[in-house]
């Protein structure tokens, strides 16, 4: 199975994960500072800044895209509860 490496810059932890993992699954397990609200891509609480490797996520769904726009999220920001890791290396931090 393809693997990816995600680094949570705020706690300086890198985790090797299987492709297809959502960011929320791994950030909660390592205790990163990304916080969650609805966990359904609606409240925007888990807005996350992608420092590098944004292209290694699956593109945002129509729902996520709309929520990002509604909340005036800057570029290179994703919802951790929605963002699905595809491979490569990614560095993130709480927005």
């Amino acid at each position: 199975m393809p693997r990816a490496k995600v680094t949570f810059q705020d706690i300086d932890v890198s985790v090797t994960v299987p492709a297809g993992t959502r960011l929320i699954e791994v950030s909660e397990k390592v205790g990163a500072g990304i916080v969650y609200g609805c966990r359904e891509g609606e409240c925007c609480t888990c807005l996350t800044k992608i420092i590098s490797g944004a292209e290694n996520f699956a593109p945002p769904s129509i729902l996520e895209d709309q929520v990002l726009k509604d909340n005036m999220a800057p570029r290179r920001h994703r919802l951790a509860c929605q963002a699905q890791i595809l491979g490569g290396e990614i560095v993130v931090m709480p927005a």
Partner: protein
Amino acid sequence: MAMGAAAITDDAVEIAPGVHWVGALDPHLRSFDIILKTANGTSYNAYVVRGENGVAVIDTVKENFSDDFFRRLESVASYDEITTIVLNHLEPDHSGALPELLRRAPRARVYLSTRAQMMLKALLKPSGEKPPAYIPVTTGDSVDLGGRTLSFLHTPYLHWPDTQCTYIEEDGILFTGDIFGCHFCDTRLFNDRVGDFRFSFEYYYAHIMRPFRAYVLDAVALIEPLALNLIAPAHGPILRHLPREYLHRYRELATPRLFNEARSEKTLLVFYLSAYGNTRRMAEAIAAGAERIAGVRVSLYDLEGGDSDIFTDLVEEADGLAFGSPTINADAVKPIWDLLSSLTSVNVKGKLGAAFGSYGWSGEAVRLIEDRLRGLKLRVPVDGLRIKLVPDTGELEQCCHLGESLARHLTGQSEHRELDMAILA
């Protein structure tokens, strides 16, 4: 409440020329949203603003008070005059009459904050109607009513993501939604006429606004430059006498009360309870370990000797929190849960959290506390420490290491770790 019953009728009440209160009174309510006590009931304040080219309605009321709202509204405006509906906050006690208002005033365009859009759609679901024409607005946007301009201020999280304030520059009137409000029903309506409501104003801040203290300060900074003749909140007295005093009080309430001696350092609070001294020894070792790291100020508290309110104030200011509890009957002990349940009244999001404790049989307390800390949106990057009964020298050194590790996280000195998802619990 019967006080000053003559002061109000079924009609609207003029609060400034061409500006009316059209809200509703709920004097017998004794608890609000389950969590707030309301000895004096509450009011749902809505307002009508008349311009030369149109009429604006600002907020509505709780649904079962709709008749009062519409009766008062009809006493000062006809539905075909309403061009503008402003929603400063979409919680149901302010948007309950909205679906019916939209039916009665089909010309109206709805102005709301950008973050309120999805809430509006969700609120209108039961009516089965298509959402109305709405315009998301933010600071700098305005609506011209003819001779009167409504300007919007983006003031989110007071106390929902959607909240905003609306200002009439020509009159110096600020409609604030829940901020500066309180649950205090008095038919005399205005702050210079109603009974003493100060306790309610501060109680409301403490229970509704305090978790969003940083946003309160942002909003206060946005409002302070405005000329203010009157603050019109969505609950409680209308603040026409010395409105700036209430703004000033909010700044005070949202600012730490005492000078913080450790403000240049990171602060770690270690709370514990201990039946036989074992969890206490762990706490002391964790504190000692954390103190080995420069730039961290550690405080140690025995929860048996204090109460949650005092500790809640401390937690609000702290950077890191560690909680120690023995396991009794497969659970953490009650004072720990009392403190952890009280933390919803302050903002702990993103603080560093950790748990530890001695146990005899099963030791569930530590994991249960960690789960609660995650639920409170703390980050818990260091695994908690469970020690069976009496900690020996090596185990106390483990406690020191835990303290060190927490201190390193607080000061940005944590060592880089490489993990595999497969080994994470």
